[in-house]
């Protein structure tokens, strides 16, 4: 993923604000002395406002507020033809050669926006192309899924559910593993289609039942590490959610099992809250993310690899996908950790992911 802010900071000829209150000197122009001694800081208020017109500050600097790919950017601390008249005669003479044409600033803004948008489109198209290639795997997955279903239909009983209950543990595990594989494949479009989280509109869902079903599927993966999945709570609410919602508990289950210590339980509680809402909490025991890294855990491709866990594979996309879906629904997933809750290893403790939907 291109770091838009790094690219802009490295290429801007003008002083630039990418983070409120921090003005970086440009490649060609540094921020003016008037800017450095300014007390009013009007530019701080302008940050993130994406105004269409440049604004002149009382100190004779011009402020250009805009956004590139959703990132707020401010060109400031620069004297232009629009603001030079604000300077006293001495400063006006001093800045004669340092006065920047406002048109050149606007041209730079337009040029860099266009280039970054084109790059993003190319990256996106490449991701879609890769998914197209992956798409060829779908028929094989479907074929295996149909064969697994045929195995279940051979069992004794009336109806699919009864036959499933009568099936051998191996067939049940195979069936559940396929359910997880299918769900995992269906997470991928969330990375390339920004509209995907909201497709199909909202429908009322029994969240407790959904999480119970998911938990049963994940018991197959949890078995290997002798991890028990315990579901608790009282919930009958059915908040309106998009079809993508199941990606959130799916990722949290996956994460919990992946980074859990062996023989430790994964505790999931689902309780009603507010008017029609549901609160879900995932707790698992394992290495905790250091405090200084916690704000990054939902970022794309971020992976914190605890010491000794180097062999644990992961793409760094799971929590990022969960965040995309959470944002579409209007809620946030919170992560906290209680270090050293039970284990002598200081880097291990209780990992807690929680969120509230509806209500």
């Amino acid at each position: 993923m291109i770091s838009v802010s790094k690219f802009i900071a490295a290429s801007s000829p003008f002083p630039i604000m990418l983070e409120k209150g921090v003005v970086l000197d440009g490649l060609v122009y540094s921020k003016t002395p008037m800017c450095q001694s300014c007390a009013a800081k009007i530019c701080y208020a302008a940050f993130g406002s994406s105004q269409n017109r440049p604004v002149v500050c009382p100190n004779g600097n011009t402020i250009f507020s805009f956004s590139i790919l959703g990132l707020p950017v401010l060109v400031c601390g620069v004297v232009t033809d629009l603001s030079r008249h604000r300077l006293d005669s001495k400063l006006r003479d001093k800045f004669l050669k340092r006065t920047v044409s406002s048109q050149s600033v606007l041209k730079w803004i337009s040029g860099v926006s266009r280039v970054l948008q084109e790059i993003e489109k190319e990256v996106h198209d490449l991701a879609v192309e890769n998914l197209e290639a992956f798409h060829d795997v779908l028929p094989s997955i479907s074929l295996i899924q149909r064969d697994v279903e045929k195995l279940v239909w051979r069992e004794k009983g009336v109806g699919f559910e009864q036959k499933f209950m009568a099936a051998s543990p191996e067939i049940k595990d195979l069936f559940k593993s396929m359910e997880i594989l299918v769900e995992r494949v269906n997470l991928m479009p969330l990375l390339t289609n920004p509209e995907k989280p909201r497709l199909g509109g909202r429908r009322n869902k029994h969240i407790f039942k959904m999480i119970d079903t998911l938990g049963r599927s994940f018991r197959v993966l949890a078995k290997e590490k002798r991890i028990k999945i315990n579901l608790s709570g009282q919930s009958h609410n059915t908040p309106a959610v998009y079809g993508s919602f199941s990606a959130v508990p799916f990722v949290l289950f996956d994460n919990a099992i992946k980074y859990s210590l062996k023989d430790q339980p994964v505790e999931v509680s689902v309780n009603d809250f507010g008017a029609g809402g549901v609160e879900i909490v995932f707790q698992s025991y394992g290495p905790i993310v250091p405090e200084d890294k916690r704000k990054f855990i939902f970022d794309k491709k971020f992976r914190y690899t605890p010491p000794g866990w180097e062999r644990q594979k992961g793409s760094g996309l799971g929590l990022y996908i969960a965040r995309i879906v959470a944002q579409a629904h209007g809620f946030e997933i919170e992560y906290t950790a209680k270090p050293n809750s039970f284990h002598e290893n200081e880097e291990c403790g209780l990992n807690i992911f929680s969120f509230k939907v509806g209500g």
Partner: protein
Amino acid sequence: MFSKIKSLFARKTLQDVSVGYSYNYAEIKKRIRILVIDDNVEHFPLESFRRDGYAVDHWAKVNSEDIAKLERGDFDVILLDIKGVADKAVSPKDGFGVLKLLKTRNPAQIVIAFSGQSFKLSSNEFWELTDGYIEKPTTFIECREKIDEIIKNKITISFFWGAARKILAEKGVSDSELGVMEKQLLKSIEGNRKVDTVALLGKISKFAEASFYAAKAIDKIYSLILLLP
């Protein structure tokens, strides 16, 4: 308190009544005809659905002769793939073209998007036009849950009346005439007077003669009335 008083005086609609009724879904499931249009039969758990008592047909492609069957409303629910299901002669835009044709001609036709293309922004219009979506790959349990949900939400008197009303309005039947029809229909359903409801539907059908699709929607309402307790 105020909202309670307000609700007492609020005009009831067909939607309120339909929601209050419990349809015999087990019966509905046995009677509805589902059609899956997908060039790869393995994508849909066809055998599982048939063994579970659903009447499901499968077409790999839509030919020009098939369009008439689709337009006739022979199938209650259609699962439609976006790619590889229609020749250029039938639809230059493949599944999307078929979907647009069906939805334009017959608003009462329930179409579920069945595709693995949800990773593409360009296919969003397809998904949004349909009555629901099922992604590929899918499992029998997941697929059945989604289809059952769509059946419960869409195969209702209010859905078909909404479609019929829309078509009749386009054919020039006035709002006030439609309002009177709806009121009478509402009264006879609430009063559990099946015979009166059937007679009423017969009268409405006369209006619907101008439109094959409105008549089809009325037929669906008639079938559902018979299934009411």
